[in-house]
Structure formats: structure tokens, C-alpha cells
């Protein structure tokens, strides 16, 4: 399992310097570390977080947005009618709730359909593993820089250490 500070350092090493989002338990450790480092700006909704990331990108930052996959639904319009048509990139760090149907009922539909949804709206995605973190992050940076659109890194439970609620 990855330590949250190692993962955050990996993100910072490839240039990410603006972090916003809406919490999820899977992301708890990462958010705790980002908050400790005073580089996390909480948002109240995922579409607001994506909008803030767009503004930060205009201002010269390299932004990342943290969200539970349910938040993809909230962010869908801004991703489609802002980021994708204006070519405004951001990293989406999305927790994969409902993976393989093992979660609370509200997560099951999104858990099953998330990758199809991302494919449909043409957002490139990859699933993080502890063993391949370096390659996963390199792929993230490359896709972000070359395509200038949102790119999603999916985080399953137990890949990055989290905090106890």
C-alpha cells in the first residue's frame, strides 16, 4: 500500500501544484496530507472544483481535482462544455467506489459504469496500482500535456493509505 505523502510527492514531482476537490474516505489520507502541506483548497461540489481548477490553470497552475466517482455525475457538464471544448486540462483523482459491486447500494451503478462513462465522454483514464505508481504518473503527465484535456486516475480502496473516519 502506498503512503499518502509518497503519492502526493509523486504528483508534485511531475508538476501538480494546485489541489482542490470534495472528500471521499478512499481519498482521506491524501487530503489529510495535502491539507497539512497547506496546498488543498476544499470545494463544495465537484463541478465547482473543476471550475476552480480551470481558473487556476489559466493562472499558470497545474491542477488536480479529487472526488468520489459519484462526483463525476455532478461534474459532467462542466467537463463537457468547459474543459473538453476549451482544451483546459486537469487531473481527476477519482475514487472507485462500488468496484466489483462490493459497496453500499448508492455506489453500485456508478461503480459498474464509470469506465464506460469516461470512455463515452472521451476522458482518458487509468487505474493506479502501488506497483506501477511511477508509470501511472508518467502516463498522467504525458496525457495531460499532450491532449490538454481532463485525464482521470482511478483509485480503488486500499491502494493509498487513508485515515480512519
Amino acid at each position, binding site marked *: 500500500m502506498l503512503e499518502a505523502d509518497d503519492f502526493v510527492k509523486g504528483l508534485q514531482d511531475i508538476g501538480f501544484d*494546485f489541489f*482542490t476537490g470534495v472528500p471521499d474516505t478512499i481519498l482521506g489520507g491524501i487530503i489529510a496530507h495535502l491539507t497539512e502541506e497547506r496546498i488543498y*483548497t*476544499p*470545494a*463544495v*461540489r465537484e*463541478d*465547482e*472544483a*473543476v*471550475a*476552480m*481548477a*480551470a*481558473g*487556476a*490553470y*489559466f*493562472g*499558470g*497552475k497545474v*491542477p488536480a481535482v479529487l472526488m468520489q466517482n459519484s462526483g463525476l455525475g455532478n461534474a459532467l*457538464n*462542466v467537463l*463537457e*462544455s*468547459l474543459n473538453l*471544448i*476549451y*482544451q*483546459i486540462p486537469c487531473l481527476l483523482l477519482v475514487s472507485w467506489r462500488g468496484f466489483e459491486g462490493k459497496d453500499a447500494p448508492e455506489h453500485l451503478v456508478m461503480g459498474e459504469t464509470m469506465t464506460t462513462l469516461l470512455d463515452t465522454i472521451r476522458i482518458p483514464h487509468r487505474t493506479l496500482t502501488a506497483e506501477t505508481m511511477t508509470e501511472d504518473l508518467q502516463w498522467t503527465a504525458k496525457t495531460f500535456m499532450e491532449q*490538454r484535456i481532463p485525464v482521470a486516475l482511478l483509485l480503488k480502496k486500499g491502494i493509498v493509505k487513508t485515515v480512519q473516519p
Partner: protein
Amino acid sequence: MIGPEEGVMQSRAQAMAAIFELLTDQPLIVCNGFPSREACKLRDRDQNFYMIGSMGATAGIGLGLALAQPEKTVVVFDGDGNVLMSLGTLATIGALKPKNLIHVVFDNEVYGTTGNQPTYSRVVGLDKVARAAGYENVERVWEKEDIVYEFKAMLADSGPSFLLIKVNEQLEEADRIALAPQELTKRFKQSVS
């Protein structure tokens, strides 16, 4: 019956023009629909970012830019429909208190781009919501003289500031934004970062 506030003489384009007179090189985010078209027609500048979609995201974009560029004053041209769609963003701005953000809302009390369907801003005072959320300076104005006076003060003071301008429903004849969205991104990013 909810209808437009009586006695509002000024159009949004007239109110916008008054503010453009006071702008120098401040970055400006303009909400989608006719406001962007009107702003583009009145005073196209490299520092203008015109939204064509993503309704509700205006203030969020302005906030992100204000946080990334704390030495620049960021101005947002918003509408009542846009603000109501993302009312939570007023809380985010009120809590984070970026000193360099001026949030201007042209309040015509209707969804003007889609045929003047009424919004709730006639009965819900968005200035009151902004004040409750924690904006530092909040004003509601009707007349050009007051727009100029208050906006000048907001340029000089620490924000976040919220200027609610009551306008009528009149639309300015204005074409769709001619620049392609990705060209707007390049132009705007180059001019502000």
C-alpha cells in the same frame, strides 16, 4: 406573481459598459449566454474569458484564477441564473475570502438567453446571500453613477466583493463569440499567467 422589478431603466449592456470604462488589465470571466456576447461586442480584450457553456461555473473559474494569481484583481461578470445554479460557490468564496476577487452580478431576474423565464432572484436577494456567506463588500445598485462609485471602491478595497446590479431584460444585439473555444483558452491564458 413573480415579475421583473419595476422601474429598472438600465440594460445589462449599459451597466457593463460603465464597468468596462473602469477596467485596465484585470482578467475578466464572463458567464455564458448573452452576457458573453454583449461583453465581446462592447469591449473585446485579451483578458476577457467568455464562457459559452458550463452554466454556473463562472465564479468558480474566477475564484481559481484569483487564488492562482493573488497579485491580480480578478473580475467576474455573472448573472442571477448562473449564481442561483451554484449558490454553494458563494459559501466557498465567503469562506476562502480571496482579497482580489470582484464578483459582479447583472440581475435581470430572468433567464434572458432562453426566453425570459423568471428566476428566483426577485424574491431571494442574492446580495443578502453573499453578505451572509462572508463577502467583505456587498452592494446593490441600480444607477450608472452608483455602479461607477461602488466598482471604483471595490477596485481599491480588499475583497471578496459582490456588486449586484439590477438591470432590465433588454438584450443587446450581439453575435455568438467568433473565436473558437480553444483559441480563447490560449489567448486568455497567455494574457493572465
